[in-house]
């Protein structure tokens, strides 16, 4: 029996992985083969990446288009034979070997929905360790690890947990924010599709630590594959007694699906949405840790924050804390996207420079043209110029450079990008997605688009630039949440580093949409 892996990750599916799997079955004829649908290893430029289990290890072929399958099989794919698409032993590829994978340790390796495979690859070790400790000890372990929220804000997870644990109440919730709406981020999706049990385990540990009995995973509707996989995984986990009625501690888990509102990635808007309301941001305080979902104490953490917890409990806080630099401890799952030759997931300790990630691992742009700008941290993150990439990827170094590491999403642009247009888009996006609760965001974004249009048309540029500066300051200082508060960041950074793109005769300018 030959074992073949063909990813079920939606990035792989987007380039025909299902058709590849079907073709492989057909081409196998009488030869007994077993096809396992794994997650993606995160080398997305190689997708669909087909792996064949041989005595040398798992041999990879990619990118495999459905039309290429017959040729590959004829060349001896089932025996791991050489071919121009053959990448060799996948685990030995530098992209993977150079990473420190804690969160993503099993993604791409295992069958995402096979509980035995999960346990065989180290799954449940964290939950078992946690249940041997008191809840207070578990919270302390997470605090000592230095784990900070991976959703973007970087708030220490242990402190949040401690607040919830210390707030008395018969009903507490764990809410996982899987509303991954930022462009350039896909790690949450890949984890949910590629190793959903890790998230479930992390949530079960969080529930035990703070005394919560119910959990919700709020997944955006743009991720139908993640929703399906997560729901199936929860059913399996209940069946295994990891959560639900058969579990040692009382905790059950539900998936809720968003409905196309970017703002629901903001934690209080997400809570409103979970309550069945419009996703309107709440004023803080009160903080969700004390007055959260339905007014109850609630942990709201990002997917990767919760998925980091099992490894921390299994390996100990000290080991986790040893990774990283300064106040950024442990590993971050960087996501390399946009106009990049080799895009995908790169999990490594904080501190590697952006330059190295983009050029050494990413291989520069996909178009082969020079890099001109890089946006880190999503649509609300700053644009960095090509000569400003020698920046260690950790929270404080980015903040000092007027940028934001955020969730570690990196979007690369080549020299054809019109940065005036990108600044305008930042405002346009905010106008489209603002929840409308506060005026600086709701009205400011619309005015921002208008004033950028005037600047680009050459209308009173000096006055309008001053006006844009004022508007940015007002939005930054006066908005209720990060949507309006951070939209000025890409705008201002574009103005700072690419001022030439804002004039009517700018080299890359050329009009508005």
């Amino acid at each position, binding site marked *: 029996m030959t074992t073949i892996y063909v990813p079920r990750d*939606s990035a792989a599916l*987007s380039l025909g992985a299902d058709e590849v799997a079907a073709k492989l079955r057909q081409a196998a004829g009488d030869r007994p083969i077993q096809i396992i649908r794994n997650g993606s290893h995160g080398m997305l430029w190689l997708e669909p990446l087909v792996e064949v289990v041989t005595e040398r290890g798992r041999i990879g072929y990619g990118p495999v288009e459905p039309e290429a399958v017959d040729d590959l099989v004829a060349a001896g794919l089932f025996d791991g034979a050489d071919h121009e698409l053959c990448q060799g032993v996948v685990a030995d590829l530098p992209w993977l070997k150079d990473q420190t994978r804690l969160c993503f340790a099993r993604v791409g390796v295992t069958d995402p929905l096979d509980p035995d495979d999960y346990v065989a690859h180290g799954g449940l070790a964290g939950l078992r360790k946690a249940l041997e400790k008191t809840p207070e000890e578990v919270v302390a372990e997470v605090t000592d690890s230095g784990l900070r929220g991976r959703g973007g804000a970087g708030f220490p997870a242990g402190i949040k947990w401690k607040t919830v644990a210390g707030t008395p109440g018969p009903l507490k919730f764990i809410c996982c924010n899987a509303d991954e709406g930022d462009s350039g981020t896909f790690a949450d999706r890949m984890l949910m599709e590629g190793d959903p049990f890790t998230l479930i385990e992390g949530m079960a540990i969080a529930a035990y630590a703070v005394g919560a009995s119910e959990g919700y995973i709020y997944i955006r509707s743009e991720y139908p594959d993640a929703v399906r996989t997560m729901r199936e995984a929860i059913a399996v986990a209940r069946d295994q007694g990891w959560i639900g009625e058969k579990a040692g501690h009382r905790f059950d888990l539900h998936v809720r699906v*968003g409905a196309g509102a970017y703002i629901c990635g903001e934690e209080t808007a997400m809570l409103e949405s979970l309550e069945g309301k419009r996703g309107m941001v709440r004023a803080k305080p009160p903080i969700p840790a004390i007055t959260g979902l339905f007014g109850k104490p609630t942990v709201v953490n990002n997917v990767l924050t919760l998925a980091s917890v099992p490894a921390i409990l299994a390996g100990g806080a000290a080991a986790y804390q040893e990774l990283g630099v300064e106040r950024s401890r442990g590993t971050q799952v960087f996501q390399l996207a*946009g106009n990049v030759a080799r895009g995908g997931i790169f999990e490594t300790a904080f501190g590697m420079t952006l330059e190295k990630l983009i050029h050494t691992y990413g291989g520069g742009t996909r178009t082969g043209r020079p890099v001109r700008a890089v946006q880190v941290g999503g649509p609300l993150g700053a644009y960095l110029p090509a000569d400003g990439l020698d920046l260690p990827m950790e929270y404080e170094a980015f903040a000092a450079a007027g940028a934001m590491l955020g969730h570690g999403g990196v979007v690369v642009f080549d020299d054809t990008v019109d940065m005036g247009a990108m600044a305008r888009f930042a405002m346009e996006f905010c106008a489209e*997605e603002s929840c409308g609760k506060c005026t600086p965001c709701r009205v400011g974004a619309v005015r921002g688009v208008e004033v950028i249009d005037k600047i680009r048309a050459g209308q009173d540029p000096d006055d309008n630039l001053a006006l844009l500066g004022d508007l940015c300051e007002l939005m930054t200082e006066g908005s209720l949440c990060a949507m309006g508060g951070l939209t000025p960041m890409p705008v201002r950074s574009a103005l700072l580093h690419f001022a030439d793109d804002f004039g009517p005769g700018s080299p890359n300018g050329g009009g508005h949409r």
Partner: protein
Amino acid sequence: MVSPGSSVTDRVRALVAAHRGDRGALLPILHRIQAEFGYVDSDVVPVLAAELNISRADVHGVITFYTDFRSEPAGRTVLKLCRAEACQSVGAEQLVAHAEQVLGIKCGQTTPDGSVTLEQVFCLGNCALGPAGQVNDRVRGRLSPARLDALLTETVNR
């Protein structure tokens, strides 16, 4: 005889009943209504309000807040194209312009024959393989104008 109106009402009541034990069940219910009928008709608003004991304004407010909920049926094929930054860096705007030209409609519209609805979307989580799109819930990557044309021909003619 049962009028179409009352059968829809009965069905909506049944969907609400199926979510009776769920906390804050309005969104899951609306998703089910849309999955079943293809859109959320304004006629269901008073039914939901009465069943869930909230005001009609609350129900209307939720339906109109979220872009997913349609007030009228979509075309037989729904094509969503990502216009977020990562896809823009590899030509999303040109792709959207191409789609608008080929289909003869703007984003947010449906072709007159009801075959295709074109929508913009901000991020499908396929940011390393852009420009990305979604055809009837299936994500597609590296969409060139030619690939999009082929995909549309294949899907629409199916």
